[in-house]
């Protein structure tokens, strides 16, 4: 795996691999400037579908810090909420949500299997900048590019890109985040219209046509008109 510069030029976005070749979240550009992110597929993906980060785990939010951790510490002990496989949150984030140390977040290097109401130690990539106390609370958030799924009609995380191929579950590959992209339309798209994530059809987009749809997550602008339930070209801006 490449571990240095997280930007790769001249990628082939139409390939996938069972082996991780780059950091999750690495940025890739095709020769014409389209922009992509390197991800792990969390299910079988359909080309042209809008994708979402893995669903939040509300059972692993608002957790207590089990033992105070000083500035410079490279690990934090947290009382967890449920059963979670080892390293599911690796390369994700330990987010300090309330005092002390709130407003900061740390990338997680590794952790053991988690069990309900049991303390577990989270190894971090960076040392603590502000000390944590047992009054601090934290959220555990998966890397948004690990186990991406079809964007559901009812959001459980944020959109992260569009599938450019039919992806195999658990494989690694590129999803598009910027530039001209082929995307599934829920209803007809008007050329030039701002487009948002659909709240009716999983994996699709729709036109931001009124106060309600304008409040949905912005995805891009239609480069052409697109017929209902068809795929068409959008200037993607995720």
């Amino acid at each position: 795996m490449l571990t240095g510069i997280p930007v790769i030029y001249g990628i082939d976005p139409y390939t996938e691999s069972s082996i991780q070749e780059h950091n999750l979240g690495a940025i890739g550009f095709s020769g014409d400037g389209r922009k992509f992110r390197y991800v792990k597929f969390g299910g079988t993906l359909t080309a042209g579908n809008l994708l979402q980060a893995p669903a939040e785990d509300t059972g692993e939010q608002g957790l207590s810090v089990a033992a105070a951790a000083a500035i410079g510490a490279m690990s934090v002990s947290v009382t967890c909420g449920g059963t979670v496989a080892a390293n599911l949150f690796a390369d994700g984030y330990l987010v300090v949500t309330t005092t002390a140390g709130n407003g900061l977040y740390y990338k997680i290097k590794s952790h053991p299997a988690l069990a309900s109401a049991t303390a577990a130690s989270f190894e971090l990539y960076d040392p603590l900048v502000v000390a944590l106390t047992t009054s601090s609370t934290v959220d555990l958030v998966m890397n948004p590019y690990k186990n991406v799924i079809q964007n559901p009609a009812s959001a459980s995380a944020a959109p992260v890109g569009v599938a450019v191929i039919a992806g195999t579950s658990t494989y690694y590959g590129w999803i598009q985040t910027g530039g001209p992209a082929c995307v599934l339309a829920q209803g007809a798209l008007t050329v030039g219209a701002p487009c948002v994530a659909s709240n009716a059809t999983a994996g699709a987009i729709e036109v931001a046509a009124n106060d309600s749809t304008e409040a949905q997550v912005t995805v891009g602008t239609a480069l052409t008109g697109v017929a209902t339930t068809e795929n068409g070209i959008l200037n993607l801006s995720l």
Partner: protein
Amino acid sequence: MITGLPVVYGIRPFEEEATPSCALGTRGYTSDGRIFRYARAGEALTAGLVLQAPGEHTNHQNLTPSAAVAGATSVTLTLGATAATENLYAEGYLVVTATAGNGIYYRIKGHPAADSSGSLTLQLSDPVKVAITASSKIDLVKNPYSKVVVFPYTGFTSAPIGVACIAMTSGYYGWIQTGGPGMVKADDTNITVGAKLVTSNATNGCVENCADGAESALPYIGDALTGIATTENGMAMLRIDN
């Protein structure tokens, strides 16, 4: 200071420094592709709060210049009723807003101090592309990453440009986050997972759900990766500069 390619990889966003090591606005990436910009704090900053570019000076807009031919590397103009300190606009922009030469802007290299309503000559980083006449109109705009402040919930004086990663010391330099998974703070309403987030209309530096048409008019910050409780910090996919 690094002056070449304005992109730095493998940065450490939790550090600040009294002396700049990069040009303002330099883009930085962590190894997992999170995106940052190098900025100077204009006041003490709190981690997790949305930041604004330095406020505009409306008395330094719509100014009348002296003629400058194509190829000139300086432009002289008359300020409005606000004085300018030396290099207030260094690394900022001279923006031609109306004929002739309009639609083009130039990076400012430096300038001396000038009195209120006084004459000011600005040195440019690039030569004038289209001749400027005494009929042209000029706006002066500070570098948006110079002296950033907490984004005010009302009476904005510029645009949001990032989120503070650490508690920064006023006048110090460091990285602010602009793209990818990052921290935000909820105002007095709960944040819904997956919601489009805009700057709060109730609390400085905070965000809120974009829940109706009025909130659609507020600056867009990103999308919620998780639900976030009232007045707490939590994780969003930042899209300020991605």
